[in-house]
């Protein structure tokens, strides 16, 4: 099933309309952001209300370096990711002193610090006008990334690299211990794990990948503004993760795809997409609290065996 989806992502672009291709590119980039948030939300069990800040740091690094200093991709990429990692390393020291509601609120305040700089530090960020006319990167490839199909593959490559690394991380002993911390912090501590350090490393990794997503986003959009890192964006990424399924990597990617498609397709037909998005938020929590992937797993684990059993009973196996 997953393999088929990956295959489709790989071969379908030439057959898609340019509008759909654009949406897929957006979805792939947001999928990186959603997967990164899932490291702390789904695997470690900490809900952050400021994750868009790291995405914004990556995006603004590109915006400022590429337009004002003519920096290329191989400079903006490490700077953007490193900046996000550094800020996450500082913020993590503050935020990880708390859990639950306090963690939510502290990450919100920290996110606002970064948003405030983007919004008000006009000489650096051009404030609400944002930074526009960011050129697409030149990687010296035979295909120009200014066109939508090569850029799609560029974003797909970024997504696949992120997905592979994150998958190695969550399946490693380190990733398993994050899940252990989510399930029972005190038990992990008793077993001798350095709980704080695990959370901290998870937090910084999540920040780094969000920054990577931001770098790609700035190149894709050609434009960065405070909207990219405002509170509503942070909450939207939480929705993507919750809708797709916490604690899985493909779930958040799927959630990102659904929300991006929904937002753009609905706004073609009606101006009332905020209303519809609001309903999606509420419906997700009411009808699919474990997300789509969670619901599918539950189905596979409970409903399908029960169904098979009852059929076997009926027809004598």
């Amino acid at each position, binding site marked *: 099933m997953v393999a088929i989806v990956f295959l489709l992502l790989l071969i379908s672009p030439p057959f898609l309309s340019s509008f759909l291709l654009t949406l897929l590119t957006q979805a792939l980039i947001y999928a990186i952001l959603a997967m990164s948030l899932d490291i702390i*939300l789904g695997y470690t069990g900490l809900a952050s209300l400021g994750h868009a800040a790291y995405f914004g740091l990556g995006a603004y690094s590109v915006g400022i370096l590429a337009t004002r200093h003519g920096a290329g991709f191989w400079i903006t990429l490490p700077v953007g990711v490193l900046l996000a990692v550094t800020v996450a390393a500082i913020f993590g020291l503050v935020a990880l002193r708390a859990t639950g509601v306090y963690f939510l609120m*502290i990450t*919100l*305040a920290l996110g*606002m610090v970064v948003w405030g*700089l983007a919004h008000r530090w006009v000489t650096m960020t051009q404030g609400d006008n944002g930074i526009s006319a960011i050129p697409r990167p030149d990687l010296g490839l035979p295909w120009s990334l200014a066109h939508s199909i090569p850029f799609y593959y560029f974003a797909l490559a970024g997504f696949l690299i992120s997905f592979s690394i994150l998958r190695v991380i969550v399946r490693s002993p380190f990733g398993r211990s994050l899940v252990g911390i989510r399930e029972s912090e005190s038990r992990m501590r008793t077993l001798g794990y350095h709980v704080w350090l695990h959370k901290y490393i998870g937090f910084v990794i999540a920040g780094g990948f969000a920054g990577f997503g931001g770098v790609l986003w700035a190149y894709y959009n050609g434009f960065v503004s405070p909207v990219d890192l405002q509170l509503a964006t942070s*909450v939207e990424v939480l929705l993507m993760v919750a809708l797709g399924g916490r604690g899985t990597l493909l779930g958040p990617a799927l959630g990102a795809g659904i929300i991006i498609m929904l937002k753009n397709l609905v706004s073609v037909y009606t101006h009332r997409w*905020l209303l519809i998005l609001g309903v999606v*938020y509420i419906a997700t929590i009411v009808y699919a609290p474990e997300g789509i992937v969670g619901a599918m797993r539950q189905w596979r684990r409970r409903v399908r065996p029960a169904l098979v059993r009852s059929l076997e009973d009926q027809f004598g196996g």
Partner: protein
Amino acid sequence: MEFWVSQTFNGISYGALLFLLAGGLSLIFGMMRIVNMTHGSYYLLGGYVALTVIWRTGSFVLAIFAGALAITLIGVCEWNAFLKRLSGQELGQVLTTMGFALIFQDLALIIWGGDPYTIPVPSVLSGAYQIGDFYFPIYRIFIIAVAAAVALVLWLVLEQTRVGAMMRATVDDPEMARGVGINVHGISMAVFALGAFLAAVAGVVAGGFVGVYPGADFEILPYAFVVVIVGGMGSLKGALVGSMLVGLLDNFGKALFPELSYFTLFAPMAAILAVRPTGLYGRA
């Protein structure tokens, strides 16, 4: 000198507004640990409802009460239908209340359109007092007076009455409170209603000097949260100190370092939280 006096005065009056908005939110947080992203919408909708009432009737007092009561009703419905079932699920609370915030935002846009409005203030409250060389707008003095009255009433209720003692018990230990026969559910709903009521009052009052406009809900929401976390969830004193701190920092930040103004507000807040994660007056 004039700069310092007028900026301090402005900061205190903005802090008073924030106290109206965040005082109830702090009690909600302390008692139910509910993250309510709709709190900013109560503020915005309160202003809009009051605007309609004042256009129809011309009465400012009626507008305040109509706005606040309408929003209280909305808040109680939201609490009963959704939020009370989500206790302990922070992610569920954030997403559900965010959904409502988006829906309210869009409904407000449908009903009242995208233009900014100012709520017309009665002539008694317009104008300014002059003391020596300094001018103090009467409307801002009015806001400070309203906030002070609300703070006093809340303090009297919380510290001096039986209901207040039950509220404090619920903040301290909801399970134990339920055990000794306190109607925790009823008290929680009453506190939620109170929070919505005060947020709407804040929205109406704010409509008289910053106006009512689309986006005001998400603009003010982070301020309310920061007041609550810095003061300490569930602490009235904390909410009061937090609002003044945020009001003054915001005003002086914007006046002295316009480019870094949000940084000068949120960075010190984060620093306070780094030292005291439960806020100035909060208990873990």
